[in-house]
């Protein structure tokens, strides 16, 4: 009889028959480290359903932001099931931590977390189909094999489709995980194949699949007016004037609740979003900005200078050897100041969310969120109810880039919908709202020093980092890791920091911390290389020469491999070969190198750049060598992520900044936050260095190194060092 079997430490499987003769295999992937809370088998969701017509439905459990996860996780299941991919339909799962474990789009975690459990689920279903066939034919299951979508007995003409076996398979015992053998990499038929996105056909037809496309009967639209100055409070607003505008149904204030990132402001409700948004102009709100109005990017930069000048140093957060002696004994000391600005995420689909407070007091939401479980918790907490009374549909998202890790807009629409029980409300932010209410990539300032001895060896490294005090939350996007390269690869080192007070919200932007630190560290190492008559790849190879991989560490997902110098060396050598590093390049062009390790991925990149007649940088070509483990799961998605990351990084390097002025973000739309456009697209050559490691994520690690690769190329070209982003062409004058 069907039973429940625990696969690995985390996965629970349960088989059942479905009406009409199908077979459903339910799986739960409880949160790591939490008790498994499956109250009854009926609670289990059908993760894989095999229908009598041989079609297969697979649940995509994680949110899709364009990273390809809704295609990629089902590929893992379908591979081990040995399904025919063309007969697979993917459905998005609801938000449910008890059933699915973490449902998260962020941190490039999904690939390493799911590589084994998803495949185990598929393999279990396949084993049960084979057991059903063995019973039907009266043969030993060991004599059977599968072809895509069917069980066969090689050497005979016995063959049955999965659909034909489904109802019998539902009666088979769920196999012991120890009895399951996952496929050998060489036998993969789906993994490793370039497979188009499962939603792509609907996208090209303009079908409603994004959060903002949600349409419900009787739905109204909300716009939200908040203070431009971060930290300001509301003094007054003319609600009646807004209510008198055409199409406006209501206008009311929403109180702040910092615990759930809810800011104070005014909601305007209308039967058309444009009318709601337009009516904001008649609110004439008065804000009390208090001390925060005096804050500015320029003021923070000034504070960094003062912190460096004060001579008292900062709080030391990493130290090794005797850094003072290293500098005292140095043959040469290099010193430089580096900085980078705030950045916004500007996902193409502006922040939005749809909510319906049912008459029975439960909340239903359609949420474009990278962390829908976090949003569910926040909304439940805000409303003072249990999370299971907040039903959260996960919609496809028009980009995330880390912005949608914060669920402030989910709580905001819940606060609005709470006031209008029975009426569905869709909250939409304008692009101006989006740019001025972001959780920005933190700006940062580094005073870096390097000591070099008479032999040209790097003997000391110091950094006084000026950053922001963001409190003691679980995740701090303004922190620098104590092990930031070359921390463990130089004998004497000191990192110290000074933290500035701020009300500017900050958060993770694609490749958080790395997107900024790669520029500083790889640029300054390039300075060291030039000062010692080397080039950067050579210096990187020397610093890591003969160093064994670091031992595994305990992270969010359990044990994960430590940083591996040999993997760094392999991608560095690979990209040097691809770009013909060291050989002459076209007149007026130069090459620059950058390496960075983040999200368990190793990327070495070379940029070929020139300067146009007005000293604007032009990127001609980028070579990328990446190591993200033993297998590229979907080459289509993988390449798209890398190409997108490269262009994203070049945009950050060349033209993007959010400036705080008068306590508010100055940039407001694409005219002053100029994202990359098609004409600046360089040629991009990507090669994978496969290594004997479980596959890891690709949404982020290709981005960081391209920034220093560009600025290092511009140095090679002009002899001028870019030490502040975005690149100011005046540097080259």
């Amino acid at each position: 009889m069907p039973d429940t079997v625990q696969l690995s430490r985390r996965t629970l499987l349960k088989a059942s028959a479905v009406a009409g003769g199908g077979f459903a295999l339910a799986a739960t992937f409880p949160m790591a480290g939490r008790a498994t809370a499956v109250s009854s088998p009926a609670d289990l969701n059908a993760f894989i359903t095999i229908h009598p017509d041989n079609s297969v439905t697979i649940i995509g459990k994680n949110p899709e932001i364009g990273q390809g996860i809704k295609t990629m996780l089902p590929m893992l299941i379908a591979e081990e099931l040995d399904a025919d991919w063309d007969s697979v339909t993917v459905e998005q799962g609801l938000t449910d931590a008890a059933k699915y474990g973490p449902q998260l789009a962020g941190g490039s975690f999904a690939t390493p977390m799911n590589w084994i459990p998803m495949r185990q689920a598929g393999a279990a279903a396949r084993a049960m189909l084979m057991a059903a066939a063995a019973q039907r034919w009266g043969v030993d299951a060991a004599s059977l094999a599968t072809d895509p979508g069917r069980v066969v007995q090689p050497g005979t003409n016995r063959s049955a489709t999965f659909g034909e076996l489904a109802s019998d398979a539902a009666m088979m015992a769920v196999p012991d995980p120890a009895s399951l053998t996952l496929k050998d990499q060489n036998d993969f038929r789906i993994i490793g194949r370039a497979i188009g996105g499962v939603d792509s056909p609907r996208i090209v037809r303009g079908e409603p699949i994004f959060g903002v496309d949600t349409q419900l009967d009787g739905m109204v639209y909300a716009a939200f007016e908040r203070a431009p100055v971060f930290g300001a409070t509301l003094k007054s607003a003319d609600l009646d004037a807004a209510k008198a505008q055409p199409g406006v149904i209501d206008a009311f204030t929403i109180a702040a609740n910092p615990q759930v990132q809810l800011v104070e402001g005014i909601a305007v409700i209308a039967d058309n979003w444009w009318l709601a948004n337009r009516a904001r102009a008649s609110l004439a709100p008065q804000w009390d900005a208090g001390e925060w109005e005096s804050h500015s990017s320029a003021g923070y930069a000034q504070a960094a200078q003062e912190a460096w000048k004060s001579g008292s140093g900062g709080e030391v957060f990493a130290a090794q050897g005797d850094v003072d002696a290293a500098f005292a004994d140095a043959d040469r000391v290099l010193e430089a100041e580096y900085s980078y600005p705030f950045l916004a995420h500007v996902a193409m689909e502006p922040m939005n969310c749809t909510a319906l407070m049912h008459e029975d007091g439960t909340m239903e939401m359609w949420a474009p969120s990278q962390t829908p479980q976090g949003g569910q918790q926040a909304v439940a907490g805000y409303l003072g109810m249990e999370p299971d009374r907040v039903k959260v549909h996960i919609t496809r998202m028009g980009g995330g880039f880390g912005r949608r890790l914060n669920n402030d807009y989910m709580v905001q629409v819940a606060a609005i919908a709470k006031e209008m029980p029975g009426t569905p409300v869709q909250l939409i932010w304008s692009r101006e709202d989006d740019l001025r209410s972001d959780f920005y990539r933190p700006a940062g300032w580094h005073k870096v020093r390097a000591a070099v001895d008479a032999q040209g060896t790097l003997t000391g490294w110091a950094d006084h980092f000026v950053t922001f005090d963001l409190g003691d939350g679980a995740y701090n996007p303004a922190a620098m890791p104590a092990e930031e390269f070359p921390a463990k690869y130089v004998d004497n080192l000191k990192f110290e920091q000074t933290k500035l007070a701020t009300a500017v919200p900050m958060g993770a932007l694609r490749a958080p911390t790395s997107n900024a630190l790669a520029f500083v560290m790889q640029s300054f190492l390039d300075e060291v290389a030039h000062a010692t008559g080397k080039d950067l790849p050579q210096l990187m190879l020397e610093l890591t020469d003969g160093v064994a991989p670091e031992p595994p560490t305990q992270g969010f997902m359990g044990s994960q491999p430590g940083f591996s110098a040999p993997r760094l060396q392999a991608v560095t050598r690979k990209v040097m070969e691809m770009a013909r590093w060291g050989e002459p390049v076209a007149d007026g062009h130069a090459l620059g190198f950058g390496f960075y390790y983040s999200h368990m991925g190793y990327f070495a990149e070379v940029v070929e750049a020139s300067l146009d007649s007005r000293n604007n940088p032009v990127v001609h070509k980028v070579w990328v060598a990446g190591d993200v483990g033993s297998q590229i799961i979907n080459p289509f998605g993988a390449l798209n992520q890398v190409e997108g990351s490269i262009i994203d990084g070049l945009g950050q390097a060349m033209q993007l900044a959010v400036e705080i002025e008068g306590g508010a973000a100055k940039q407001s739309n694409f005219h002053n936050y100029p994202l990359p456009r098609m004409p600046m697209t360089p040629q991009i050559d990507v090669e994978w260095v496969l290594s004997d490691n479980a596959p890891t994520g690709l949404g982020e690690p290709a981005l960081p190194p391209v920034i220093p690769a560009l600025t290092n190329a511009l140095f090679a070209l002009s002899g001028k060092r870019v030490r502040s982003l975005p690149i100011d062409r005046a540097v080259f004058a």
Partner: protein
Amino acid sequence: MAYRVTINGETREIDAPGDMPLLWALRNELGMVGTKFGCGIGMCGACTVHVDGQAARSCSLPLSAVGEKQVSTVEALEQTPVGQALQEAWLEDDVMQCGYCQAGQLMNATALLTNNPNPSDGEIDAAMQGNICRCACYKRIHGAIAKVARDGETVDA
């Protein structure tokens, strides 16, 4: 006031202020949400529709200015041979990441190839530079347009 507008060959009545952008009439009045909101100021191309066959930014086109002109949207794209060829090329090359900009990209590309079936690389760049793709799928968008242009040429020849 009510406006009569022809969209995808069908006459629709829309009761909204004349300064409402066509985008919001499509999305919120008619429930045609294929046309996307990205910036609202004509800077991103997500809202691109065709007005009398030419690409137009519906976020910046007041309802009152549409008049007798024929509007077509992504929902009707597959009814044109060029639009259909581009949709197919988009799928073959798996152009998109998040996909949010792609309705606008496809509408703009269809207008381009309809007016100029054989654009140079520079012409593709110039025609498409008003369409932002935040995910930066530019290489593939460009490639898919060039492919359809090439295939069109072979058919014609």
